[in-house]
């Protein structure tokens, strides 16, 4: 690796601490994923959808955004993203164990359906791509109220074919809204490979909406960081949306219910596992002289400790009460109405 490459983060304005922090978040997300797969197999949690292979893009994007100001509309694989904008392992474990204290939904939704108002994480659902117009609406509101922030949303390449993506992007393009659309193109939509899913190139769709499309290597955290940072600057300058296509590979099966060997080969998966973004990031740190194997072991141990704590906390936390089923269909009469009036 050349010197240029090993200090790329500095040329992007990232400190050494930040880039280590990026790695830490990627690793934490990876370990969370691995833990959940174990917990699911052990019957301790019902279900898990994994983000393995997508951590680089998620962390790169999160570091380019402003926490406490920007709005985030992530999709179900974005563990590394939400961990990087303030969600904790405990929060995620509470969701995995579907417990009352889960800040995402109070144990109502499947895990991976992120929500945390204080952190700017907007509640998401399962039907894919519905969040895209929401991101546009938040950006519109910000523009109307002359607030300086962006809204950032992600979705898979399969999901990019939903009508809502088209309608949302066109709306954002017409009004030059501060939105960043990031498609995490991981080559599969469950079993359907890219070429049966998407005609043309996703990145080229931006042209038709009059704003730039950028294709980046989604396994390279710094490349994604740079693209999102530029997109954010454009948005804040009033120059409108950006579409980022982050190309990557879904290393794990679609979910704990999926047998991916029905539609792809071990060899194909192995090929990509060797290009694992977390390992590549570690290598970058090692090559830059910012990291050592000893530090890595210490970090792994620390994450493990945290993970155990979070797991235990999630496991032992109480469930909602059965009658909670009936709450929050509508506002409590006094509550919000008075707030707004």
């Amino acid at each position, binding site marked *: 690796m050349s010197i240029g490459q090993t200090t790329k983060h500095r040329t992007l304005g990232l400190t050494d601490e930040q880039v280590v922090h990026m790695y830490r978040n990627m690793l934490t997300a990876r370990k969370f994923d691995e833990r959940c797969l174990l917990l699911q197999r052990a019957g301790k949690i019902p279900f898990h959808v994994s983000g393995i292979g997508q951590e680089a893009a998620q962390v790169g994007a999160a570091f380019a955004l402003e926490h406490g100001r920007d709005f985030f509309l992530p999709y179900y694989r974005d563990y590394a993203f939400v961990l990087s904008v303030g969600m904790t392992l405990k929060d995620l474990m509470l969701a995995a164990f579907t417990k009352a204290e889960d800040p995402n939904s109070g144990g*109502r939704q499947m895990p991976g359906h992120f929500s945390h108002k204080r952190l700017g994480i907007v509640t998401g659902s399962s039907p894919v791509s*519905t969040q895209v117009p929401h*991101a546009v*609406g938040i950006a519109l509101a910000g523009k109307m109220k002359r607030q300086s922030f962006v809204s950032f949303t992600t979705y898979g390449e399969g999901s990019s074919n939903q009508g809502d993506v088209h309608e*949302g992007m066109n709306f954002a393009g017409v009004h030059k809204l501060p939105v960043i659309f990031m498609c995490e193109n991981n080559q599969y939509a469950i079993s359907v490979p890219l070429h049966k899913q998407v005609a043309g190139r996703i990145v080229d769709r931006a042209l038709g909406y009059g704003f730039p499309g950028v294709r980046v290597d989604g396994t390279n955290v710094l490349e994604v960081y740079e693209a999102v940072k530029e997109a954010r600057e454009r948005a804040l300058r009033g120059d409108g949306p950006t579409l980022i296509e982050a190309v990557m590979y879904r290393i794990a099966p679609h979910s704990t219910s999926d047998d991916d060997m029905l539609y792809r080969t071990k060899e194909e998966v192995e090929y990509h596992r060797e290009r694992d973004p977390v390992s590549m990031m570690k290598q970058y740190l090692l090559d830059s002289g910012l990291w050592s194997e000893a530090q890595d072991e210490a970090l792994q141990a620390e994450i493990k400790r945290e993970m155990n704590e979070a797991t235990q906390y999630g496991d032992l936390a109480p469930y909602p009460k059965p009658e909670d089923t009936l709450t929050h269909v*509508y506002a409590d009469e006094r509550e*919000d109405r008075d707030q707004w009036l």
Partner: protein
Amino acid sequence: MAVITYLEAIRSAMDEEMARSGDVFVLGEDVGKGGVLNATKGLRDKFGEDRVLDTPLAESAIVGVAIGAAMYGMRPVAEMQFADFIFPATNQIISEAAKIRYRSNNDWNCPIVIRAPYGATGGGALYHSQCPESVFFGTPGLKIVAPSNPYDAKGLLKAAIRDPDPVLFFEHKKCYLGVTGPVPDEDYIVPIGKADVKREGRDITVISYGLTVQYALQAAEQLAKEGYSAHILDLRTLQPLDVPAILEAASRTGKVLIAHEDNKTGGVGAEVAALIAEELLYDLDAPVMRVCGPDVPAVGMNPPMEKFFLPSVDKMLDAMRKLAQY
């Protein structure tokens, strides 16, 4: 109290709420020029084109963008140009707006209003006449409103805009210019969830909403001349239904006629009849009756089919008389 049209009531509700708070804005197709049905006429001149926003022709985006803005804290009022064109937005309404509070365990909420001009005016044919309320009725998390006169229309629309939850607001197009009535000069709201007795009576009870309330009132005048008195309950809010008011009105006379323009099977009237069958069986003196549109896709364009399809004062009177004489 000024006497104004139903359309003016709706327009002035938006006007006043927009003046009251900078969070309120309207968006939709052609709303800038005043809307194709004139509901937003004059608002752009007053509040600017940002707050009376012409959108691209894409209903799912109109609702989806409104939802995003509402989650941010705005109070968007989204216009569907015709209720017949609400269906591209179904996913945003049912999967999103209706479930945002519940799924986030009360962390987020979605105070949008979706205005949908519905019902037949004559000459609208299959796709400019529909009553789609039953599609959304029965989706918990949504509120659904369908006023029958200017007072209720204005008061309910203001209540809807101030409501912290999503409200589908169905405006019967034939009421727009066809129904006028007194409306207070000062600020008021009509609470969502409360039905209203529009006429007191002893012999039969008519339960309805929207235009058919007006037909029932006219038919009741005629029926009174024939010696029967009709009690008329206007549901006003379809969801949540005002169950106590329904049961009270039904038990008042023991003879219930339910009327709506929407087709009969699976309509709101079915739920009203079911509630009565569950709660008031022994108070009934006649089987429950329904006068509704026939179970066909929608109204035809040509006049004979249109007349056959649509409710009218005469059809209403026939049914009311039959029930009174039962």
